């Protein structure tokens, strides 16, 4: 039962991503070609509200539903891993038109081809684990 809330949030996420058309290859192409405001509007609104909300959580030391402090752990300092890893991600994002979340939302919508994309995303994650120690981080 403790997982029900995550199931519901996942469902809402799937619906929002589909109805906003952020799961569409067309929308991702339009974004990378800077030909519409739509995707920037979605991400920009989320981040603007996100920055304000996170600042409020920190300022008022808001706790989670169990009374534990909400903590934000700073990510490891590096440039190479974020720039290189991010660029590889971007190449895949623009080709397949989907990041990991939208992949599975597309499968639910009935685009079976996205199951292939998702399977190979698993393979890619595994490959990263294999060559991890040889990469600049």
């Amino acid at each position, binding site marked *: 039962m403790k997982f029900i809330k995550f199931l519901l949030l996942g469902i809402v996420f799937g619906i929002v991503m*589909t109805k906003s058309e952020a799961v569409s290859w067309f929308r991702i192409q339009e974004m990378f070609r800077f030909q519409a405001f739509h995707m920037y509007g979605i991400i920009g609104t989320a981040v603007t509200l996100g920055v304000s909300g996170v600042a409020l959580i920190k300022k008022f030391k808001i706790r989670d539903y169990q009374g534990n402090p909400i903590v934000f752990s700073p990510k490891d300092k590096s440039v190479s891993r974020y720039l290189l890893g991010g660029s590889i*991600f971007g190449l895949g994002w623009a080709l397949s038109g989907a990041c990991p979340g939208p992949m599975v939302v597309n499968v639910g919508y009935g685009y079976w081809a996205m199951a292939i994309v998702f399977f190979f995303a698993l393979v890619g994650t595994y490959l990263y684990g294999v060559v991890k120690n040889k990469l600049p981080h």
Partner: protein
Amino acid sequence: MIELLTQPWSWWFSGAMIAAIMFFLLFFGQSFGFSSNLRTICSAAGLGKTNKFFDFNWRSQMWNLVFLIGAILGGFLTKQFLSTDAPVQIAQSTIEDLSRLGIGAPESLQPAEIFGLEAMLSLKGFMILAFGGLMVGFGSRYAGGCTSGHAISGLSDLQIPSLIAVIGFFAGGLIMTFLILPLIF
């Protein structure tokens, strides 16, 4: 009401909903980051036996796998009850650019030239799907997060690493869009 929901949702409402999902996850003691599921699934599949990177208590990430199942359901429910399956209303300039690549104007949510059955079963089409997925999976773990973990959660916390990752997302995306896609299609 239903009519309002079946239309495509505005960017501001969608963005606000995404922020709300992030805050609910924080309130429930977790954080918004979808690509972690890829590593979790590798671990659940037993790959931790051969590789230390996947040797962790994946059950602690069960909540995120449940979120993933929910996301699939969300896509399914939208298709069944909230969809008109109308063509995505992208900019005319994008339609013109894509037609030069041989991708027709939208007829539904996705281009049949990439996600249709015929494309999926052709060698070239399969390779496009496979390499796309491969790079997303490899890149997201290398960068330590995807759009949700870096562009939404990380930027909301004003994390410099996330800003660098997002710059990377766009560097890769622009190279693919303007340099590689014209060679593929």
